């Protein structure tokens, strides 16, 4: 049984990894860190380099969690990419970071996080970046 952690190199992504690793140790489950760049452009700044990936896995080892990094490409269907991973690895939980986005922003640009929350077939744990938490 596996926990999927959606990760992008942002404060929200870091928060998601922290929460995912805590959850992994608590439940004694394997963690898959998903860093999925969008297909199309030759370079995506949200895809992390090999060195950053090794650093993430080192953090997981320190936390005593068995972790793996996956970097599948996604097109217009990020929730679908998560569903595939859930089917493939027997996922039990998705952990993602949420950032603030206004109603208008959501209306125009949509929100991948919202779609994951609505469409995922397993429970979703959503966390906020530390700075946002402090403000509230």
């Amino acid at each position: 049984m596996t926990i999927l952690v959606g990760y992008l190199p942002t404060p929200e992504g870091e928060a998601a990894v922290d929460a995912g690793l805590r959850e992994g140790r608590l439940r004694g489950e394997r963690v898959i860190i998903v860093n999925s760049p969008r297909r199309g452009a030759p370079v995506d700044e949200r895809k992390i380099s090999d060195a950053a990936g090794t650093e993430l896995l080192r953090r997981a080892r320190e936390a005593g969690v068995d972790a793996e990094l996956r970097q599948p490409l996604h097109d217009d269907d990020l929730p679908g990419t998560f569903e595939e991973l859930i089917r493939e690895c027997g996922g039990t939980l998705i952990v993602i970071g949420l950032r603030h986005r206004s109603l208008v922003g959501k209306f125009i640009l949509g929100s991948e996080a919202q779609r994951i929350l609505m469409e995922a077939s397993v429970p979703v744990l959503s966390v906020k970046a530390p700075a946002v938490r402090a403000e509230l």
Partner: protein
Amino acid sequence: MDISPILDGFGVVLEPANLLYCLIGVIIGMLIGVLPGLGPGATIAILLPITYGIGPVSAIIMLAGIFYGAQYGGTITSVLLRLPGEASSVVTVFDGFALAKQGRAGTALGIAAIGSFVGGTVSILALTLVAPVVAGFALDFGPPEYAALGILGVLLISSVGNGNRLKAIIAACVGLLLATVGRDTFTGAERFTFGSLNLAEGIDFIPIAMGLFGLSEILYNLEERHNQVHSPAKVGNVWPSRKDLGQAKGAIGRGSLIGFVLGVLPGGGAVLSSLAAYALEKRRAKQPERFGRGAVEGVAAPETANNAAATSSFIPLLTLGIPANATMALIFGALLIQGIQPGPQLVTEHPDVFWGVINSMYIGNILLLIMSIPMVGVFVRILRVRPAILAPITVLITLLGAYTVNNSAYDIYLVIVFGVLGYLMKKFGFEPGPLVLAFVLGSMIENSSRQSLLIFGGDPAGFLTRPISGTVLALVVIVAAWPLIRKALRRKTPDRVEEKIT
């Protein structure tokens, strides 16, 4: 040598407007050099209509800037992402990316920029010295010589270029055929017009170039599935160490020479010279096994050579009026649009264009050297744009541009027709380059050979008795028969093994 027109040329370049166009040209060149897919040929084709609105000197300065700027830009992605932005930077990938993996991406980029600058500058210096001499020699050329040179040009371009020889010749023949469409200038008879008034005017160069180079390249690239996304690479120190420079010195020198010589040859150009320079360095090296694992020479040689070649390929265009490669054919077309016939008269009739363009390259190379080292990160940002967003915008600009030339929707249809034709040609392995070149040279060949027949009183033997046209025609025969000659030679020496580049 009279030096005052050269100095006047600098005066032309240093006008603020021309400096600005030079800067715009090299920046666009860098950007599209970084983008895989969109090459300098396509960009120049798409921007041809813009050159209508600006003066000839500024227009050609800008287009030339795009051409050599792209040679700088192509390096960046080769080194950082193992993704050659231009065909002429393909060999740079081997050692450039290997250096980047060792954390020396900055060194590779720095060496490439310095090599490009040296290669370009050496080539411009040689161009400054050689071009007026060639042009002076060619002033004696009459119609028969031009006819012969045109035929040689078409033949060389279809046989020296990369790819299938037969297919290139077929493409060239289609280009020659298209050049005959329209009202005959001598007799007024209509040829291949099928009763259409639009065709009676002949087919314009702009829609053909925009379709075959611009639209077809966009269509072709859209089809490619991008299954690899890279994380953004960091570039550290870009100043190469003294040791690296020492290692690259010889390669830069030899690369400049190879690039200059191969750039002048029709069908040669930047791609061929970068391959040749890399192969030479590898053969000369004491430890050839270093190549492919991050040899500084492996970056310096091809990058120097492709810039030198990009510059020297202006020689046949500016002095003889014969474009040496497909991109030069587009610049040839741009000059024609401005009402300037490229050829030996250019240096005397339009010294501002001739020296303005040549001297702008000195400035452009300095601008590129300044920009390419510290601003790599800025240019790499364009790679974050998805083709799904970039392609429709480019198509829109292309079609809008095609329309504005004559304010006619017919031109838009022509661009689309030639865009689809070019796409299909690429799918089936035909290069559009020979077609466009043959189209450009076709009307020149036809006009000058008919003029010469009038001079000779209808006797074609006249072509052979004039010394220059006779020599050129003999060269035509040699080039045409070269594959047979080579086969015969190879049969005598069966042991010789063809050396491969990698």
